[in-house]
């Protein structure tokens, strides 16, 4: 197996799984953590990831196919998403090659797809827990907006609007801190989200607003 990337909590290897291009995501233990906590978090995250990937697919959201799970070594063997770029790289490439106005225009259909997809996900009570533009892939020609969600390690099932609101808040913060001047895109995401999560979006948006205010208005003592 060839080590491809090392993230903060997992090593990503590339390999071949019976003829299929495969990614092995190996969560490793963190020695700064208490062993009991470490073991429990690692197992919990492998399970959450598997569960959410399958549940998302069942709701029509593209996620990698899981080939094999080894709980003993905390490894997930999954389909390598060939011919894909992260939404992060794509936004950066669009922003660097176009004027600000053109970039927003080009990225609007993508924002629509993201909002639509997250609406479906939340409607199924799947909370991703770590929505960033690095955790979204575009497969094939990016302009086709074939969006694939990955990295579900922090996901969970919950129908509380609070958790869904925080999920969107995390994305908003990640989007705006990683890609300056994307506030408009986030609004597009929210609009599309409201359309696809037709029943619950009102409460979720209200919670999002509340969570935003908590951040801005918190009295921050010494």
């Amino acid at each position, binding site marked *: 197996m060839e080590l491809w990337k090392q993230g903060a909590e997992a090593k990503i290897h590339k390999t071949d799984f019976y003829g299929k291009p495969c990614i092995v995501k190996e969560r490793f233990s963190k020695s*700064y953590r208490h062993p009991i906590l470490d073991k429990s978090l690692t197992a919990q995250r492998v399970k959450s990831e598997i569960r959410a990937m399958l549940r998302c697919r069942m709701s029509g959201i593209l996620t990698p196919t899981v080939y094999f799970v080894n709980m003993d070594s905390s490894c997930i063997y999954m389909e390598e998403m060939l011919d894909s770029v992260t939404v992060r790289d794509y936004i950066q490439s669009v922003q660097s090659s176009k004027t600000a106005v053109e970039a927003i225009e080009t990225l609007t259909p993508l924002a629509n797809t993201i909002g639509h997809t997250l609406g479906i996900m939340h409607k199924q009570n799947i909370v991703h*827990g770590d929505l960033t533009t690095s955790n979204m892939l575009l497969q094939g020609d990016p302009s086709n907006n074939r969006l694939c969600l990955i990295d579900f390690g922090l996901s969970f099932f919950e129908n509380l609007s609070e958790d869904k609101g925080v999920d969107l808040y995390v994305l908003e913060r990640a989007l705006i801190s990683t890609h300056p001047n994307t506030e408009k895109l986030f609004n597009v995401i929210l609009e599309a989200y409201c359309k696809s999560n037709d029943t619950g979006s009102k409460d979720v948006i209200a919670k999002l607003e509340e*969570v935003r205010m908590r951040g801005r208005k918190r009295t921050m*003592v*010494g």
Partner: protein
Amino acid sequence: MVVAIGFEGSANKLGVGIVKDGVVLSNPRHTYITPPGQGFLPKNTAQHHREHALEVLQKALDEAKISPKDIDVVCYTKGPGMGAPLVSTAIVARTVAQLWGKPMIAVNHCIGHIEMGRLVTGAENPIVLYVSGGNTQVIAYSQRRYRIFGETIDIAVGNCLDRFARVLKLSNDPSPGYNIEQLAKKGNKFLELPYVVKGMDVSFSGLLSFIEEKAPQLLQKGEYTPEDLCFSLQETVFAMLIEITERAMAHCGSQEVLIVGGVGCNKRLQEMMETMAKERGAKLYATDERFCIDNGAMIAQAGWEMFRSGQTTPLKDTTCTQRFRTDEVDITWRS
């Protein structure tokens, strides 16, 4: 050569510090300590600051062996913090600035911590974990702002620790967090507590209500000692902080990490951060209680940077604000 004096009083510490071109000449501090089981209230804290302002100021001048005429700029904490203590300290700063005929600079408290940390440790461009009684933020510098990558979505980590100290009726002297740290050293039985990380954000309120509710029972039955609970609490909340800091480091490709704020002098937090940093081939920068805990020199140091980059605050704008986000400040002194 620029000499800056800084007044800090956003919470229960009153500090006056004098900095001369990156050298701390003096940094005395007086802390308002409440009885066990009690937090500090704004009104009483402000009164404490008023009572001790002149004595601490005199001490700062004496230790620095400096007279008011040598001072170039008077810096004070504009916010964030508790209203009444902030104002009581700002009044002192405004008064001396007018008496001495010196310009003033309004400083963001969080920026003070970051700049002091950078000065003391020599960290160039670190990811900053800012942890205190009122703040929990993971910060990185980019394009003239200290940007907040992660933060608590409810209460601050220091607040969580302080409130648990109240449950155990621990002494507030020298600080509740310090006493939790001492007890935690003797704990070894780990209790699993709610661990809530969302992206680069954390949440402590669920954990706090869980342990507040369970603690009396667990202690009474003798299943866990207060030491075990302090240990478990620290292990859990610190692991959450290290995790989001590491994510920010991975996200920004950073090889330096700096811990600032009152909780930052916790040795166990530093040790855990060191372990994480080492595994990444990164370097940890931390300071001791002289500079981690709120102090006047940090306000002087941030003010010194601002002053050198050409800023001053007109007297009419030397107000205070309880809410003042780290990312609102234009960082004119860094490229």
